[in-house]
């Protein structure tokens, strides 16, 4: 079967060999977890506990506020030390008693075929599950299909196109059954007839493992994808697998598709089969660390501990990135916790970082134009933004930018194209609000 893909995109160095062959290890539990009440896109959860409370593993400690929000659960058992702002975000600090005393609410929810779509959505909501690829959009919102829309396909995103990261890869190799079970649950939730799992061909063992797991399934197919960034962007994924384009300004729903991450599917499976809410997740700790590896950690474990657990830094660290090197966020404070959205902790050493590149003039080489997966003219967007021609940006479809950073990656003049484009988007949106 020929690997499928979208048009344009880039080929960064993947560097996945550091951890691709390493099975998940359980990270040791921390003495103390810091659990932010906002680990998702949407409104922060409201704390349900106070200082001095004794909490159990899996106990709900934060209640979602509003529809686009997510519940938060204790990832260890122990005593609440404080409910306070940590780095600007209200968080629950729990002193771990290392007893892993499970909350009584935790029990298996029954057989998939006996659960209705509504019950399944409730389970997902109660488990505080969010998109685990890094976007952290609440999953129960994603599977609530608005009136008038019809979804007939669910795609699981196993492309894992960000360089360095290997958690989805390992999950597909080690937990294929759980992935399929989660996909079936998702299909039931949105009443979809077909399921797809897109996997880049640089993960042959994952493709094989998934194909093995779907042998008895006739509604689910595994689709090998070309190795190219950003193959895991949901619009790019839909284009590759179904050859359909999500209309400009639209959502996958508009072409009858819901896209979810591999890790999200497994979290759903755990919520149904065990009843355990989202209290742990997988992370690739990699780059300039002595022992790069894939870990399963309790939500709220300090970043520093996960780095220590991976042997500590090699040389002087220059940058610590949460997520992958293309779309991840640089972090300066390693006392902060790893959360529901932390799919990677990538350390770049001071040496490989080098001097921050000085931007030169655009020589109109059009590498950004050729790379852009949204088929925009990034160089023109930069010029329009600089010239403050914000409404004009609309003619150039600036809002269709998916912020993948391919333009900045290829720019020979080191121009921070993506930053300019993001600014242009904000300026345009502000202008549009004004004229409303």
């Amino acid at each position, binding site marked *: 079967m020929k690997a499928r893909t979208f048009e344009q995109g*880039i080929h*960064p160095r993947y560097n996945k060999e550091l951890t691709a062959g390493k099975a998940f290890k359980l990270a040791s539990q921390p003495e103390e977890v810091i659990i932010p009440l906002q680990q998702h896109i949407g409104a922060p959860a409201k704390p349900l506990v106070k200082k001095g409370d004794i909490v159990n593993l899996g106990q709900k400690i934060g209640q979602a506020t509003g529809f686009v929000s997510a519940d938060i659960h204790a990832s260890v058992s122990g005593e609440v030390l404080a409910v306070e702002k940590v780095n600007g975000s209200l968080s629950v600090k729990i002193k771990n008693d290392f007893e892993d005393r499970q909350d009584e609410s935790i029990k298996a929810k029954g057989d998939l075929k006996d659960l209705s779509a509504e019950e399944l959505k409730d389970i997902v909501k109660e488990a505080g599950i969010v998109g685990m690829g890094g976007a952290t959009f609440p999953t129960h919102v994603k599977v609530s299909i608005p009136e008038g829309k019809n979804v007939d396909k669910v795609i699981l995103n196993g492309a894992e196109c960000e*360089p360095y990261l290997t958690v989805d890869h390992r999950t597909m190799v080690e937990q294929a059954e759980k992935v399929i079970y989660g996909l079936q649950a998702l299909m039931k939730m949105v009443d979809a007839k077909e399921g797809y799992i897109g996997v880049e061909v640089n993960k042959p063992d994952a493709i094989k493992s998934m194909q093995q797991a779907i042998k008895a399934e006739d509604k689910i197919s595994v689709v090998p994808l070309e190795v190219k960034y950003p193959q895991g962007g949901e*619009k790019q994924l839909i*284009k590759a697998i179904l050859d359909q*384009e999500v*209309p*400009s*300004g*639209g959502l996958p729903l*508009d072409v009858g598709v819901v896209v979810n991450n591999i890790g999200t599917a497994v979290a759903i499976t755990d919520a149904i089969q065990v009843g355990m809410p989202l209290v742990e997740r997988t992370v690739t700790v990699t780059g300039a660390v002595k022992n790069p590896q894939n870990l399963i950690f309790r939500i709220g474990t300090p970043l520093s501990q996960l*780095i*220590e657990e991976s042997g500590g*830094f090699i040389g*002087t*660290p*220059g*940058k610590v*990135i949460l997520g992958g*090197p*293309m*779309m*991840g*966020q*640089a*972090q*300066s*404070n*390693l*006392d902060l916790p790893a959360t529901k959205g932390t799919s990677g902790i*990538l350390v*770049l050493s*001071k040496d490989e*970082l080098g001097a*921050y*590149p000085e931007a*030169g*003039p655009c*020589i*109109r*080489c*059009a590498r950004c*134009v050729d790379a852009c997966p*949204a*088929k925009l*003219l990034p160089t*023109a967007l930069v010029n329009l933004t600089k010239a403050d021609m914000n409404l004009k940006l609309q003619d*150039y*479809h600036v809002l*269709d930018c998916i912020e993948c950073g391919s333009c*900045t*990656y*290829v*720019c*020979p*003049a*080191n121009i*921070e194209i*993506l*930053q300019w484009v993001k600014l242009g988007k904000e300026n345009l949106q502000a202008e549009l609000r004004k004229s409303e």
Partner: protein
Amino acid sequence: MSNRTQLTVSPGPHVRSKESTSNIMFNVVLALLPTTLTAIYYFGSSALMLIIACSITAVATEALFQKLRGIPVTIGDFSALVTGLLLALTLPPELPIWMAIVGSIIAIALGKQVFGGLGYNFFNPALVGRAFLLASFPVAMTTWKLIDVTSSATPLGADNPTAIALKDLFLGRVGGSLGETSAVAIILGGLYLLYKGYIDWRVPAGYLGTVAVLTTFVGKGGPIFHLLAGGLMLGAFFMATDMVTTPVTKKGRWIFGIGCGILLVIIRVYGGLPEGVLYSILLMNMFVPIIDKYTLPRAFGEVKING
């Protein structure tokens, strides 16, 4: 672990390709080597002197202008060297050195720096320099020394163009400007740039293709003669492909190349000038902003919802 003060925080992407402006420009210089060496081989020291004079002058002019403007001197990006070298390759071998120096100053000063330097110029700087020289010193600029005969006109100026063996045009055994002589050397460099992805095949394909098709029907000499004669090959592979002064869209590059081809044939066949490469490209340079504007690619998902 108290490393927090030492960690860099900057926006992504956190990895970048190794490509750089200076590397691209350096590769253009490399690609011009076969043509440069051929010129020196055929025309000897006079060619060598012109090449050195133009190159040094271009780089020095760039540095001087940047000093005067109080901005960082960026001659290390090789772009001025490319301009100087290209200009030299469009000059007749017997041109007095001082004229070449004047042309090179104009190329950088008027062709590039007055617009704001690299990336901001509308016209190909080397061609601006050549246009200036052609207007100022028309006789010196159109006197050619034939390789083993005495002086004569460029093949395009000959009464009976077909009398010149196509093989000689191909290999370079004809009179003409330094870089016009050998099509083989130019194509070699052009293929290298295509292979490295530094030029878009659509431009030379559109340019050369249009000339080939049109000269099948109009003018004397036929398509192969017109493709090989004059500065067309050099223009198609090294000047019409200049990143700064050509469209960024793929459709735009087709239009640019085809437009150059049409203009070239009009000038060569119906115009008063023997050569049309220079003005065909300079004229099309002016259309670049408008071409880009009207050839916006269809954005991903660009349809009306439910439309």
